[in-house]
């Protein structure tokens, strides 16, 4: 067991690995009322192709998300109901690279921890329950198909990583999920839900001694026998980008997105720093602190709908910029944003006087983020960042120099990797 003390913030984290391989991290915060528990497996929507003992296996798009839905339902009970009896909320989400199961509770933390460890490790799938779920997930997929912002994100991903599993909706398509069977779900469960492929994080108001005991007993039964399995994730291809694409939808205002990707992969320590550097860089380039943001805002080219998102994952990394605009302005706005992105290093040098303020900004944001147990739990990602938490952020920013930020920006923003996607109101295609 390792204890990390964050003295400045009067917080500490305990970490250990169970004999079966499950990674456990605990942050006790007695002044809070609620406790968040998150159990995460490294299995996301992109993991549809793997090799097991050198044998290639391909699964339908949306299988990780489907499995997430189905794990709640058991032969005798529903895990949702069980949490509810303890007064807890439970939920789950699937992203490109991981699936997480969460509870949030103010009472009965011990019972919630054992329920979480129990239901995620006891799969039950039947033809009947799997077929019924196709209806529910089909509705969810259709809802996303109508969601123009979601379509914009996937449009830009299609341009950045054409024909890779990343372009499939996380839930799959109405067609792809029809092919899912209980046998496939059992197989994926066996491959990806091994304790050594998973991590448990608990943050909040709990009795550490009692919780450690519960964790040791709850997972004692789940075997580590599959650990000799030789499972390899097939790496995402890195095809040429599609520089431009567009589509129409039933919307009022056109939507524009620009995306830029970066090939080099990072080690966890590096990635943690890169994420923070990118946040500062983007704020200085196109955030409300930048002179360009104010200029474009004053010209009426961008408004509050403008935003950007950083995706740093194992195997792919990109930044996407998005906004709502008008038909008259869409080309000019795209050109302006493009000019900023491809000249990032020059633009940043012009903004050097605000660098110290930006460091303060992000130190403050990180400290305010410590107000939320949920934020602390969700920010933690063992495989992406190692055992780093929000408590590590302020000191890291304090040490950051302007020169290293500029050097990084120069590498990251490569004009050849920039692409544009847009959604126009129906009938207005240019």
């Amino acid at each position: 067991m390792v204890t990390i003390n964050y003295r400045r913030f009067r917080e500490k984290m305990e970490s250990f690995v169970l004999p079966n391989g499950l990674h456990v991290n605990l942050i006790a915060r007695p002044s809070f009322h609620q406790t968040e528990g998150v159990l995460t497996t490294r299995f996301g929507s992109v993991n549809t192709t793997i090799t097991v003992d050198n044998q290639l296996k391909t699964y339908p798009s949306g299988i990780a998300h489907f499995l997430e839905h189905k794990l709640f339902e058991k032969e005798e009970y529903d895990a949702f109901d069980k949490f509810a009896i303890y007064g807890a909320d439970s939920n789950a989400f699937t992203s490109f690279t991981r699936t997480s199961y969460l509870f949030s509770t103010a009472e009965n933390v011990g019972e919630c921890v054992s329920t979480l460890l129990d239901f995620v490790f006891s799969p039950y799938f039947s033809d009947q329950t799997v077929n019924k779920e196709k209806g529910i997930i089909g509705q969810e997929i259709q809802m996303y198909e109508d969601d123009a912002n979601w379509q914009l994100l996937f449009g830009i991903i299609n341009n950045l990583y054409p024909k890779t599993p990343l372009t499939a909706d996380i839930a799959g398509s109405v067609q792809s999920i029809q092919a899912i069977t209980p046998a496939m779900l059992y197989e994926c469960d066996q491959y990806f839900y091994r304790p050594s492929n998973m991590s448990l994080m608990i943050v909040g108001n709990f009795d550490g001694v009692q919780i450690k005991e519960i964790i040791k007993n709850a997972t004692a039964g789940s075997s580590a026998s599959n650990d000799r399995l030789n499972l390899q994730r097939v790496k995402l291809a890195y095809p040429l980008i599609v520089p431009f694409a567009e589509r129409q939808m039933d919307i009022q205002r056109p939507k524009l997105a620009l995306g830029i990707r970066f090939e080099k992969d990072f080690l966890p320590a590096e990635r943690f720093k890169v994420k923070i550097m990118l946040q500062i860089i983007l704020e200085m380039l196109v955030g409300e602190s930048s002179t360009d943001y104010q200029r474009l805002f004053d010209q009426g080219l961008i408004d509050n709908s403008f935003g950007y998102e950083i995706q740093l994952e194992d195997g792919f990394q990109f930044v996407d910029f998005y906004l709502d605009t008008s038909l008259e302005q869409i080309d000019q706005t795209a050109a302006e944003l493009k000019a900023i992105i491809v000249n990032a290093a020059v633009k940043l040098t012009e903004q050097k006087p605000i660098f110290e303020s930006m460091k303060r900004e992000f130190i403050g944001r990180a400290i305010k983020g410590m107000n939320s147990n949920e934020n602390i739990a969700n920010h933690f990602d063992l495989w992406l960042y190692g055992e780093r938490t929000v408590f590590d952020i302020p000191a890291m920013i304090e040490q950051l120099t302007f020169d290293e930020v500029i050097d990084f920006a120069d590498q990251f923003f490569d004009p050849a990797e920039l692409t544009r996607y847009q959604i126009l109101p129906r009938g207005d295609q240019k």
Partner: protein
Amino acid sequence: MKSEFNYELKPGIKVRFIQSKQFKSVQMMVSFIHELKNKRELASRTLLAGILESSSAAYPNQHAITLKLAELYGATFGANTEVEGNLNLLNFVYSFVAPEYLKAGQSLLDESIDFLNQIIFHPRMEKGMFKPEVFERQRMNLKTYIQGIVDNKQSEALVNVQRSYFDDPIQQNTPYGTETDYQELTNQDIVAAYDQMLRRDQVQITVMGDLDLDFLKHSLSKFEFQESARETLHEICYSQAVKNQVKVQTKNESVQQSKLDLIYHLPIDAHQDRMFYAAVVMNAFLGGSPQSLLFQNVREKASMAYYAESSYSSLRSMVLIQTGIQATNHDSVLTLIKEQIAALQQGDFSVEQLAKIKIELINERQRMQDSPASNLEQAVLSELLDRPLDYKTQRNGIQAVTKQDVVAAASQLKLQTEFFLKGEMANGNY
């Protein structure tokens, strides 16, 4: 541990200070409260908030404000409006990091009050008017924002069902007013709204954090509030007469997923005691949680909706039901919803089910204590209603609700309005 202090800064300007060490930041909210007289005030006050938020004499644009906030270690600031029954609140929301967590250890309280004072009392004006370009920019931004609301289909259905249900034009157009209002508002209208806000509105200042009371009092006394005759707030709760006829509306659009929204009249408001908690529990039971009848029977069992939920507005005496469904399932979903309500009215549920719902509600309230924003909102609402809304009061109120109470509350539900946003792209796959 939390302790509370209440005092009056000047007549009509109340301060509530919640002293607490739980969070690593200090939260503040200055609320200007006004009883709405006509629907245009929704737009004028929203526009006023937008103008004051984005500029001041000392900080002429968004850029200057953002940089000031960054310098104050990422202090968070925003101005917004909300409608609470018959009242409109124009809020200045602000938070800053507690000094002990900053490396330099400096207190940001005085600088923060000075910043807010600049924003509230010294806007960017020219010859008695708001700077024309700021006014125009904010007006256009809000107009396009309002136009864009219908791009989210769930919001579009909500806007329509509420327009159809309410008799009062103010309620019909909450919270932001209409596009036409923004078209017609003049700079002079906003100056008048600002004058009303400064001299006539009631003011509530709410502060939470680890501060010394005398130190805080001293800082707050620097706000340049004028002594003037401030308005009397009559009734926060909106009510309207129940109708015998159900209004039914359908709108066709080329989207995948249809939306069916209903509004029921429920003559129980936040001033009541036992029946108020009965209505809260009844709504949670109907569609306010994953354990609810709508979620379980419409979404889970019948697999007919991706979402099916209800919400009770105790300040408007109504229950809203929102669903996302297949167009072809309209009739079956409507029947299922009515069956769930009938079950509650007839007491066709077990005390165990009721107990689960109550535990869930109590937990939710316990968890709200961990959110700085919820703490402030609850403090303001409690002041407006002049009744305690702290965790213990709410827990006791919810615990006391019996099966008979739920039946009595449900029996007063009267369907008034149905709105159906009919999707014409249903692909008929299931």
